[in-house]
């Protein structure tokens, strides 16, 4: 279980995260929902170890969360542009935290590309892929590291509506495989397709949370989320 306890963050005099506390259990999806500038991306960056919080705790199964527990799929994918598809995966495995032997890294990369339908693109460069393929590669590069938590920053912002359904399906499959999925998004269509815990954020704070099935069954009990989902 991922626990965030009293997390706060300021940039200068501006408070971007105010006393955030929440829990996301293993094999489930937590969605930080909110408009731009509500602090959800900063929260994700702190979870991924790209920034530090000013106060508060991040725990995974009651131990301090370490950067190697977390993988991140970025909004713009952030693929290594001069490396081929397969090299993007191998580079992280061989030279990154895992320091895996090259032959082993190659085998894992081949297996992942086969399984996720990118085998034929193994020696292409990222700028030769479609948006959906780029995102799949960014995901494979992340899951190759076997993190416990995978963060997705606006996973559907660069994709067309058809691909959004694919992404939702992939996110559900990943959570069913045991990953803790953390998403920052303002895309209500995506949230509607996910069995998840919704954390509605405003001005750097969680203003309301709900299990998505409960919300769908009784939206009147969650006025803030309802207002954001249907009137924003």
């Amino acid at each position: 279980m991922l626990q965030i306890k009293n997390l706060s963050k300021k940039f200068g005099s501006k408070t971007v995260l105010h006393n955030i506390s929440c829990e996301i259990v293993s094999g489930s999806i937590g969605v930080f929902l909110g408009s731009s500038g509500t602090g959800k991306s900063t929260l994700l960056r702190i979870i991924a170890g790209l920034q530090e919080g000013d106060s508060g705790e991040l725990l995974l199964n009651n131990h301090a969360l370490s950067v190697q527990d977390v993988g991140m799929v970025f909004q713009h994918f952030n693929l290594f542009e001069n490396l081929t598809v397969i090299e993007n995966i191998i580079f992280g495995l061989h030279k990154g935290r895992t320091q895996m032997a090259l032959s082993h890294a190659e085998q894992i990369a081949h297996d992942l590309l086969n399984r996720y339908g990118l085998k034929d693109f193994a020696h292409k460069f990222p700028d030769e892929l479609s948006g959906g393929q780029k995102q799949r590669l960014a995901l494979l590069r992340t899951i190759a590291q076997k993190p416990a938590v995978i963060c997705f920053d606006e996973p559907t912002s660069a994709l067309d509506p058809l691909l959004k359904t694919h992404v939702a399906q992939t996110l559900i499959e990943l959570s069913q495989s045991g990953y803790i999925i953390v998403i920052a998004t303002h895309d209500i269509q995506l949230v509607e397709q996910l069995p998840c815990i919704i954390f509605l954020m405003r001005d750097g704070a969680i203003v309301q949370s709900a299990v998505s099935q409960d919300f769908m069954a009784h939206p009147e009990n969650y006025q803030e989320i309802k207002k954001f989902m249907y009137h924003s």
Partner: protein
Amino acid sequence: MIDFTLIINRLPELLYATGVSLMLAAGALLIGSALGTFLAILETSPSQVARKTIRIYTTILRGTPMLIQIVFIYYIINNWLHFSAFWCALIAIGLNSSAYISQIIKAGIRSISYGQIEAAQTLGIPRKELLKRVILPQAIQTVLPALGNEAITLIKDTSLASMIGVAELFFAGKVIIAQTYDALSVYVIVACIYLTITISLSYALTLLESKLSYHATDKKSF
């Protein structure tokens, strides 16, 4: 009128001096590229001390004439080091070039999307590996045309070494003029030789640019 007989007779001398110019340019370019790349990496590092020191270095070297730098190394620093005029010129031109090359490569490094650096951070890839495999290859490819311009400028700058007696192409031309008083013929052939070198270099750089394109390279190994 241009005296072709004079040109043909003195061509061996001029070609020998061209070799000296090319060696000077190649050596200076080597120093400039290696030191310039190192300075660019340091200048994009988080160390404020390194950044400020390099800024002072580049400001001085870009803000003073190369001729003064050559003379400074030859007459002042060489009092202790006792290098030949050729080596003094090579070092001075190389150091001057490093200041310009560092700024070109720094611009290339800064042009790389920061997202790739963040992605490497989340994967635990050390900065050294990221520089070697991702940042520098992309940065150099981006700035190759500017580096080519710097190399061409540097070839022409080697003529300044004549001021401390290095027997390079321009110096050889001046010696022939002193003997024949035919400045026009000599300067025309000297200019033609410089032009041939710079055109050949431009062509070679265009070829290199297409070779270095990562789309054109074979599968790399780690």
